[in-house]
């Protein structure tokens, strides 16, 4: 079994526990085990778009340097750090690209890392778990592991911004992606295409400008529901929180009727592969997906097989 150095990022330990636990369970099933780095730090969540701020680039490089050390203890591990959170993925990838091109920035950052006896040599690659699933494992192997096809789930993929932007960090075509689509289909669910698959959810505005997020989420959810979706699938803990929490708030004010649950792609995989329900941490969700899953007979009954 190939082992990957896995960088969780802050949210996978707090309100996206279901994302992490399902991902690790699934990764063992498909022979690409995610092993958490023993020491890691926050990557900074958003990449600085300035050309002159080196301080904001230190954290991601520290992660890469620590991951390199971690790989030495793993089996058959390629020089890759794997992320689940799409914001971590994009931040790490962008800075990694920058220092590969610009030795001067790297030297300045390494000077800062010296104190902790760390150094980075631009020999790491950043991969999102979806890339591993698509390029290394392949959808065929994923469908082979499905014991509980997700029949009845009509899922609309929502990519958010950071999986597809910018050019240096995208994991798929920025206007016509198909990685989540193919994954959803390989799990036996019905695919619902929505034009707002990368319409920004409002991101960090949730802290101080909640009305912006509310208006974005309303559009995203409406577009998916109008096309018949009964669930959304995402790869970003912030998209998940915003869409989930805002739908609940709007349902309370009866702005939105019949909110739809939001799944992480690994949760869908875990359900389809017959993993125990509790690793999904559905109690962390604002819109509980369990009633829908029970109604469709996907959880809570003995399988015929």
């Amino acid at each position: 079994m190939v082992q990957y150095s896995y960088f969780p990022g802050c949210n996978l330990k707090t309100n996206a526990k279901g994302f992490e636990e399902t991902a690790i369970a699934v990764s063992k099933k498909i022979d690409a085990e995610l092993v958490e780095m023993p020491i890691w730090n926050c990557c900074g969540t958003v990449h600085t778009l300035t050309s002159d701020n080196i301080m904001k680039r230190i954290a991601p490089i520290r992660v890469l340097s620590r991951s390199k050390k971690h790989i030495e203890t793993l089996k058959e591990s390629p020089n890759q750090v794997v992320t689940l959170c799409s914001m971590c993925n994009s931040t790490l990838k962008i800075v990694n690209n920058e220092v590969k091109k610009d030795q001067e920035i790297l030297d300045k950052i390494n000077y800062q890392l010296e104190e902790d006896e760390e150094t980075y040599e631009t020999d790491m690659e950043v991969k999102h778990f979806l890339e591993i699933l698509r390029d290394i494992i392949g959808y065929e192997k994923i469908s082979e592991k499905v014991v509980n096809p997700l029949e009845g789930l009509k899922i609309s993929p929502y990519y958010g911004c950071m999986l597809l932007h910018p050019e240096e960090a995208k994991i798929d075509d920025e206007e016509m992606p198909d990685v989540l689509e193919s994954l959803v289909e390989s799990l036996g669910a019905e695919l619902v295409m929505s034009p707002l698959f990368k319409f920004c959810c409002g991101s960090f505005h949730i802290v101080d400008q909640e009305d912006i997020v509310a208006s974005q989420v309303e559009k995203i959810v409406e577009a998916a529901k109008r096309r018949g979706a009964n669930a959304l699938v995402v790869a970003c803990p912030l998209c998940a929180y915003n869409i989930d929490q805002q739908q609940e708030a709007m349902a309370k004010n009866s702005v939105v009727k019949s909110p739809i649950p939001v799944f992480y792609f690994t949760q869908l995989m875990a359900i389809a592969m017959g993993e125990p329900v509790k690793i999904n941490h559905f109690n962390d969700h604002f819109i509980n997906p369990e009633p829908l899953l029970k109604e469709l007979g996907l959880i809570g009954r003995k399988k015929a097989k």
Partner: protein
Amino acid sequence: MSYEYLKFGKEEKDFIAKIEEISGENIYSCYQCGKCSAGCAFSDKMDRTVNQLIHLIQIGQKEKVLKSNTQWICSSCLTCSVRCPREIDVAALMEAVREYSLREDYEKIIISEISKEALDKLPNIALVSNFRKKTG
């Protein structure tokens, strides 16, 4: 019809140079096609659209630029940057305008004023990214 006479002196030129320095982009690459604003998920909430703000930067109208809410509505989703036909990193220009304000000792969000309740509820990813964008 009334006209507004615009000053284009040292102050204006310095402002343009600073924005170009922070963003690393050439502001005059923009030929005002409007594709950034057309694809922006937040155009309806901005008092000036993205291309209008870029135009104001091109003519050095510092005060009008800094008074706009455009740069604070932008969430850096980078849709404009990947679509720009002139390959300008438009989101970096928005970041440069934000940074310009923040580097003059200015906090857009005062962290101590956020309630403990909100801090407990919000995901850390939202807090960290918000503070990185809105504090200097």
